[in-house]
C-alpha cells in the first residue's frame, strides 16, 4: 500500500467507514446501555484502519484461516466498535447487532472468543501482549510470515504482565508483533497520569528494544495508517509499538475526556441527536 493510493480515495472511504462505525457503536449502546461505550469510541479509527486499511489479512468466511494475521483485542471491554466492523465484514449477520447483551446472543457486554473474529479472551486486562508474543514466536519458529497485532489501552498497561511480555518480545526480536496503545489518557477512576503516570511510553518501549512511534491524532485514519506503514518499513528486527493518542468518549459531549466516563451511559435522546447531527 502506498500513501498516494490512500490520498486518491481510500482515505475518504476509511473516514466514511469510521463515521459509520462510530454511529453504529452508539446505536448498539442505545439498545444496550450497560456496554462500555467511552473506551470503544476512542478506538474506532484504530480498528477501522487495521481492518479496512489493508493492514490485516483475514477471511470472514474462515475466521481461523491459517494464513490470517492475528489481531488480539486486549482491551476487550473497550471494543464494542468491533461488533459493527465484524458484522460489516461478514463474520456474522448484521441482524445480530440488534441482540447485543440480550438472551441468546453471542455478543456480550464484554466479548469472548465465541464471537467469530475474536482470537482470545480479553475481558480481564493485561493478557493480550503475552499471548500475542507467544503467537509471534510460534509463527517465527514455524517460518511463517503472518503478523500479530495487539490493541491495548494505556490504563491496561498498568498491569505488570504487559511489561513481562514487552521485555520478552524485545529480547526475541519479534518484528512480526505490533502493539497499538489506545492512549486515551483515562482509566476507570480518572486520568492515568494521576493514577500511575506512564511518563514517556515511547522511551519505555525504546528501552525495551522496540521500535516505537506516536500518533498525535488518534482519530485520523491517515495518521494511524502512516504509523503502521512506518513500522513495517523501519522495524526490522524489533517489535513495534504505536502510541495512538485518542480521546475517550470521542465525539460525545459530556462523555469525551470525562474522567469518570468509563462505565457512563449516554442517554438515548442524546444518541439520537448525535446520530442525526454528525
Amino acid at each position, binding site marked *: 500500500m502506498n500513501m498516494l493510493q490512500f490520498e486518491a480515495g481510500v482515505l475518504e472511504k476509511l473516514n466514511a467507514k469510521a463515521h459509520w462505525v462510530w454511529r453504529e457503536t452508539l446505536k448498539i449502546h442505545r439498545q444496550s446501555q450497560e456496554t462500555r461505550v467511552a473506551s470503544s469510541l476512542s478506538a474506532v479509527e484504530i480498528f477501522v484502519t487495521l481492518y479496512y486499511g489493508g493492514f490485516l489479512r483475514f477471511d470472514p468466511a474462515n475466521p481461523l484461516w491459517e494464513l490470517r494475521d492475528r489481531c488480539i483485542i486486549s482491551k476487550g471491554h473497550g471494543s464494542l466498535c468491533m461488533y459493527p466492523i465484524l458484522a460489516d465484514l461478514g463474520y456474522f449477520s448484521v441482524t445480530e447487532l440488534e441482540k447485543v447483551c440480550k438472551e441468546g446472543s453471542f455478543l456480550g457486554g464484554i466479548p469472548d472468543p465465541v464471537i467469530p473474529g475474536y*482470537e482470545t479472551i480479553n475481558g480481564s486486562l493485561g*493478557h493480550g501482549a*503475552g499471548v500475542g*508474543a*507467544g503467537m509471534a*514466536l510460534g509463527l517465527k*519458529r*514455524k517460518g511463517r510470515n503472518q503478523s500479530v497485532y495487539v490493541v491495548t489501552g494505556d490504563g491496561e498497561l498498568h498491569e505488570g*504482565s504487559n511489561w513481562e511480555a514487552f521485555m*520478552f518480545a524485545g529480547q526475541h526480536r519479534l518484528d512480526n508483533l505490533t502493539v497499538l496503545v489506545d492512549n486515551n489518557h483515562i482509566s476507570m477512576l480518572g486520568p492515568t497520569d494521576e493514577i500511575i503516570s506512564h511518563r514517556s511510553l515511547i522511551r519505555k518501549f525504546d528501552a525495551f528494544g522496540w521500535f516505537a512511534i506516536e500518533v498525535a491524532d488518534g482519530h485520523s485514519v491517515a495518521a494511524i495508517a502512516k504509523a503502521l506503514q512506518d513500522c513495517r518499513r523501519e522495524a526490522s528486527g524489533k517489535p513495534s509499538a504505536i502510541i495512538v493518542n485518542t480521546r475517550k468518549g470521542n465525539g460525545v459531549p459530556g462523555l469525551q475526556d470525562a474522567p469518570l466516563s468509563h462505565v457512563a451511559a449516554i442517554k438515548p435522546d442524546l444518541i439520537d441527536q448525535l446520530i442525526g447531527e454528525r
Partner: protein
Amino acid sequence: MDAIATIQPKAMRDTLLLSLYEAMLRDNDIFLVTADFGSPVMDKIRADVPQQVVNVGIAEQNLINVSAGLALEGFKVFAYAIAPFITMRCYEQIRVNLALLSEVRPMNVNLIGVGAGYSYVVSGPTHQCYEDLTVMRAFPNMRIYSPADQVAAAELPGRCLSSDGPKYLRLDAQVLPVLYSEEPPIFANGFHEHRNGGAVCLLATGYMVHTALKVADRLMASGISVGVIDLFDICGFSEDLLQSVLSSYRGIVTMEEGFRGRGGMDAMMFDYIVRRGLDLRMLNIGVEGGYRFELGERHVLHEHVGIGVERVTEKVRGLMKSLSA
C-alpha cells in the same frame, strides 16, 4: 521386585524431561517453555533442540501467556517452573488463557511444577507447596497428575501429548524410592492398588504414597492389614473401578501433602463418596496448623504437621477402633 531394583533412582523431573526430550526429537511441534528453571536434562534439551525451547525468565505470568500463544499456533507446550510459582503466581493467566480459552480453541498446554509439598525442605514455605491441589482442581477442565515415583513421572509426556486441554503435572523435587517397574502400564485407571485387605484403605498421592506404604508395613507388623492405593490422576481416575476396589473396605484414609480440609484431595474424595452413595467412614490426613517456618528433615516436619508415619499410624489405628466399636 527385580525389575524395580535395577532402576537407578532419579528425580521425577529428570525422567520426565528425558521422556520429553525423546519426544521432542521426533516431533518439532513440541515446545518447552521455562521460567528460568533448569536441570541437567534441560541443558541437553536446550543444546540439542534449541528451536523448540524458550526461557521467558523469572516471569510466570508471561510463562503462561507465551505458552498459550504457542499452543494457539499449534504447538504442544510444556511449561516448566517451581510448583508454587507455576500455579499461584500466575493463577489468573491459567484461568483466562488456559482453562477458559481451551473451552473454545484446541490447545495443549502442560504445566510441570517441581516441588510438591515439602520437597524443597530447607527453602521454607515460599518454595514449598501445600495449596496447589486445591487451587488447580478448582478449574473444571484441568487434569492433574500427581505421580509417586520417577517411572510414573516418565509416563506423563506421552499421556499429555495424546490429549488436548490444560494439565498440571505435580512433581516431587526429591529422589524418591522407585515403586513401579517399566511395565505393566499403570495409567489406564488413574490409580494403582499396591496393597489390599483389611477394613481400611489408605488412598494417597505423590510423596504420601511412600508414607502410606510405611504405615501399612507398621500395621502389618502388628498383624493388621490395610489397603494402599496410589491416586495419580486426581481428576481423571476411573470412578467405577475405584468404587469396585473400595467396595471391600469400611473406611478410607485420604493422604495428601497439602492443607487438610481446604479443598484438596480430601474434598475431592468427599464429593466422590457422597455422589456415589458409598458407605465408607473417611479420615483425612493433611497438613495441620497452617504455615510453618521450622527447619528439619522432611519426615520430621511431617510429624510436626500431622502427616508423618508415626502420626498417621496412630490416626489409622483410631479409625479402626471406631469402626469396630
